């Protein structure tokens, strides 16, 4: 094959986003913007109790309200075998409660009415007789002897334990600890959080009784998976189900699961023969849909006196809510939490995980995170800082000393991952240089000793694992986690790219067009990217866990190269040259040694439909299903400096310096946008954003007045830098970046606040590190003013 001289015309260019024109004009097309003729509106009645037996439900008053068309209860659904549905982790979840409610906010009944206001009026007319039951609000409580069994509906469930799962080598780890000079321990809770995309969930279900076709417009990050789940749950023939996921107002993992509202709306449309719209309200979104995190973690690090890390032991207990509903690869019970060895060359590690039912919402979704990687990264990065204090060494230097070295890649971790590539020291060095680390440490000392001001510096050197995933290890409900791209180059040289993933703001319409443009030598504006309609895109597992670029991005590059190989044959025919004499220079095909004889992709595309050489199939179209050979491992170092107000306990970031290495960057502007969003998420979790419950299981954080989300006023300014270490196995060397900063930054912020108080012996502060928690630590150490 002739050698290609490739220049990147479109990779690495900050092309302005194609999507923006419609959004800035208010012309986006979110599901709630769609109105169908004869459409009905649905509202959901939710349980006020966290745990209660349902003695009776009387819908007669609601049913009698003018404008109400139907009231759906669990009993009605049970007649159609729809009262329960499977979760993405192979458990079951109630669609509408029949026997009991098991969380506050659980769906109890639905009203379908001509008008949405009437539907909500009718909810107040439904009389439910609840008999409250003892409530389990923590996983520790759930696993106590004699705790109420939450899932007594399941025959094989005698207690509240969901799973026990281990990774790594226990014996080797025990030996490492027996031989250690020192052991550093840290117990911490990564609190329950909620992705809270600005657009809540919802759908319009339109079942055509004449054709049997069910078209469901829904907020779906994974429309193809949802189609299959609908087919399995409802028993509808899959060819008659069309899921259309229009523009999505943010997802962050929240729009991966199937929720009861989707199922009831579809059932109602099937029974009533009219389209049914369900728009979730914010309280419904926060109290009932996929939460994230809620891991109780105990970490132990074995060290030599010289600072060498020799072993890691982790125990984790997960609060799963009343159903096990993590949207995660089915073989991995605690997701990818066993990446907890992070960026360090740890010869031995053992991770023990348990999950338990509680009377809370199910979920455990990958909230801007690749299946529990955030929790893992947080634990190891907090633990390393604690170890640095124990050894009396600089936290950044202890990291450097123990990093996996560049020459060790591909690196097999103690828990079984094979890291594809990395240069951790380069990212650390750049971050320290950019923040002015030495001067900053001096400033910290001076401020403390001379002015009594408390400045803290936090470092986090994270490693992520994204791009699920290789089919031998990764599936959801048995569906292998490949992804797909279908590329059609039209006769005029314009193209349409159809993908199995679904953007929710990540800019796929721009970046994926750039991949095609770069491979085919046509401008990105000539490539239309289509996603989200299951009738018109190839099967794929969807967008979450930073997987779109590693999987669908790879599929796009591969199919574009396949078409280019065919185009070369056509070009040879047009140029009347032997194929091996035709070279591609990134923009055109030319005969070797005679560059004036050239054909563009547009010339070739036209010929593919008008003047095809004999023996070649017509057209310039193809589809590729990409099964990644490995995961990708983005990494970076974040350094955060904060100052604590000794009078109030409030802390403020002074500097946030981020060095990210996500491999080759397709569109740097979009990459930076993703990173800044993630750094904000990290700040949110570190400082304010969490969902708590009182002892009766009442959700504290059921609206945006109680569930605190940072505004522009609190959010820090970010300083972004990059290193580029390509993934060796990805066709364009990209790794995925949507979640790096959410994964890496919480520990950097918390480390910084702890660091400000480390000189008085503070070693841990729990997230969210709220002013009252800081003030308590100040007060205890005599630093409060």
């Amino acid at each position, binding site marked *: 094959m002739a050698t290609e001289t490739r220049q990147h015309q479109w990779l690495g260019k900050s092309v*302005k*986003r194609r*999507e*923006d*024109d*419609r*959004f*800035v*004009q*208010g*012309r*986006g097309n*979110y599901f*709630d*913007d769609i109105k169908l003729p004869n459409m009905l509106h649905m509202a959901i009645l939710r349980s006020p109790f966290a745990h209660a037996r349902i003695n009776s439900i009387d819908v007669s008053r609601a049913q009698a309200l003018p404008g109400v068309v139907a009231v759906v209860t669990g009993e009605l659904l049970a007649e159609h075998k729809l009262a329960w549905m499977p979760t993405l982790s192979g458990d079951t979840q109630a669609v509408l409660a029949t026997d009991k409610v098991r969380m506050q906010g659980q769906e109890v009944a639905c009203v379908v009415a001509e008008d949405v*206001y009437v539907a909500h009026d009718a909810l107040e007319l439904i009389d439910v007789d609840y008999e409250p039951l003892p409530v389990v609000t923590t996983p520790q409580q759930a696993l106590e002897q004699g705790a109420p069994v939450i899932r007594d509906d399941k025959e094989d469930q005698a207690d509240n334990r969901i799973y026990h799962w281990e990774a790594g080598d226990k014996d080797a780890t025990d030996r490492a600890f027996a031989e250690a000079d020192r052991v550093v321990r840290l117990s911490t809770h990564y609190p329950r959080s909620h992705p*809270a*995309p*600005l*657009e*809540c969930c919802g759908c319009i279900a339109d079942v055509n009784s004449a054709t049997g076709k069910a078209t469901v417009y829904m907020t779906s990050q994974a429309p193809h998976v949802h189609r299959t789940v609908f087919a399995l749950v409802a028993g509808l023939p899959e060819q008659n189900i069309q899921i259309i996921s229009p*523009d*999505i*107002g*943010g*997802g*962050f993992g929240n729009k991966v699961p199937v929720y009861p509202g989707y199922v009831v709306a579809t059932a109602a449309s099937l029974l009533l023969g009219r389209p049914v719209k369900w*728009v979730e*309200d*914010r*309280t419904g979104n926060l109290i009932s849909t996929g939460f994230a995190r809620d891991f109780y973690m105990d970490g132990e690090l074995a060290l030599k006196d010289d600072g060498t890390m020799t072993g890691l032991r982790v125990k984790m207990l997960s609060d799963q809510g009343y159903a096990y509903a993590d949207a995660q690869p089915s073989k991995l019970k605690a997701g990818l939490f066993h990446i907890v060895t992070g960026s360090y060359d740890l010869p031995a590690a053992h991770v023990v995980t348990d999950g338990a039912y509680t009377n809370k919402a199910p979920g455990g979704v990958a909230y801007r995170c690749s299946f529990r990687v955030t929790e893992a990264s947080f634990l190891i990065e907090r633990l390393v800082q604690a170890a640095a204090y124990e050894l009396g060494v600089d936290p950044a230097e202890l990291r450097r000393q123990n990093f996996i070295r560049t020459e060790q890649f591909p690196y097999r971790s103690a828990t079984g991952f094979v890291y594809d590539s990395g240069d951790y020291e380069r990212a650390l060095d750049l971050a320290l240089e950019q923040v002015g680390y030495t001067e900053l440490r001096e400033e910290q000392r001076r401020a403390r000793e001379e002015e009594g001001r408390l400045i803290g510096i936090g470092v986090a050197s994270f490693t992520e694992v994204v791009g699920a995933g290789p089919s031998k290890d990764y599936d959801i409900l048995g569906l292998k986690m490949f992804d797909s791209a279908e590329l059609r180059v039209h006769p005029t040289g314009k193209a349409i790219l159809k993908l199995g993933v679904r953007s*929710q*703001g*990540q*800019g796929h319409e721009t970046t994926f067009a750039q991949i095609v443009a770069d491979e085919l030598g046509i401008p990105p504006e000539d490539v239309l990217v289509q996603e989200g309609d299951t009738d018109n895109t190839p099967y794929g597992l969807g967008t979450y866990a930073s997987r779109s670029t590693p999987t669908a991005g790879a599929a796009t590059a591969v199919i574009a190269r396949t078409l280019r190989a065919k185009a070369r044959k056509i070009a040879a025919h047009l140029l009347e040259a032997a194929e091996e004499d035709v070279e591609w220079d990134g923009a055109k095909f030319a005969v070797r040694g005679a560059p004036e004889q050239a054909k563009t992709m547009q010339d070739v595309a036209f010929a593919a439909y008008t003047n095809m050489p004999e023996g070649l199939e017509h057209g310039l179209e193809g589809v590729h299903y990409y099964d990644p050979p490995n995961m990708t491992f983005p990494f970076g170092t974040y350094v955060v400096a904060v100052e604590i107000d000794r009078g109030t306990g409030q802390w403020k970031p002074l500097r946030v310096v981020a060095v990210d290495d996500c491999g080759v960057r397709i569109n740097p*502007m*979009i990459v*930076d*946008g993703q990173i*800044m*969003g*993630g*750094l*904000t998420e990290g700040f949110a979790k570190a400082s304010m954003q969490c969902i708590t419950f009182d002892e009766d299981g009442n959700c504290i954080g059921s*609206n*945006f*007045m109680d569930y605190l*989300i940072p*505004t*522009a*006023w609190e*959010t820090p*300014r*970010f300083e972004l830098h990059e290193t580029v270490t390509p993934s060796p196995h990805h066709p364009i060397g990209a790794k995925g970046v949507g979640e790096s900063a959410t994964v890496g930054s919480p520990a950097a912020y918390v480390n910084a606040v702890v660091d400000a108080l480390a000189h008085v012996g503070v070693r841990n502060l729990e997230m969210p590190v709220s002013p009252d928690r800081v003030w308590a630590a100040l007060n205890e150490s005599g630093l409060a003013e």
Partner: protein
Amino acid sequence: MEITLRVNGVERSADVEPRLLLVHLVREKLGMTGTHVGCDTTSCGACTVLLDGVPVKSCTVFAVQANGRELTTVEGLMQNGQLHSIQRGFKEEHGLQCGFCTPGMMLVSKALLEENPDPSEEDIRWAISGNICRCTGYQNIVKAVRWAAAHKEA
């Protein structure tokens, strides 16, 4: 009851229930879906519109309160087929990702620029602090408003 208001410069009338929220008047009765509902509790600003030039959160204003007044929505930003500088700023500076908060963000920014044509970063952050964005981390929104301030319509 019957109400009449000027919407993006055009007089519109509607027969509404007294309890109808302004956002539902705009989205459902007037058919303009650029104004979004994000939280129902005046917290997120996705539903921000300008009432007599002043930003209000239309999820907690009744439609009848807009009777006889001047309403501006995102659909009213574009003039003579040209994007408003604030719209161009959001595109130029990558001030949006999912786009759901964008109409509200642009409208509070427009009101800010009319009052303060050359706002500092701090002025902008304060002005948009009633509006939540879950995607961008705000930094590029601030830049977008600065861009608009520097590129006023002739």
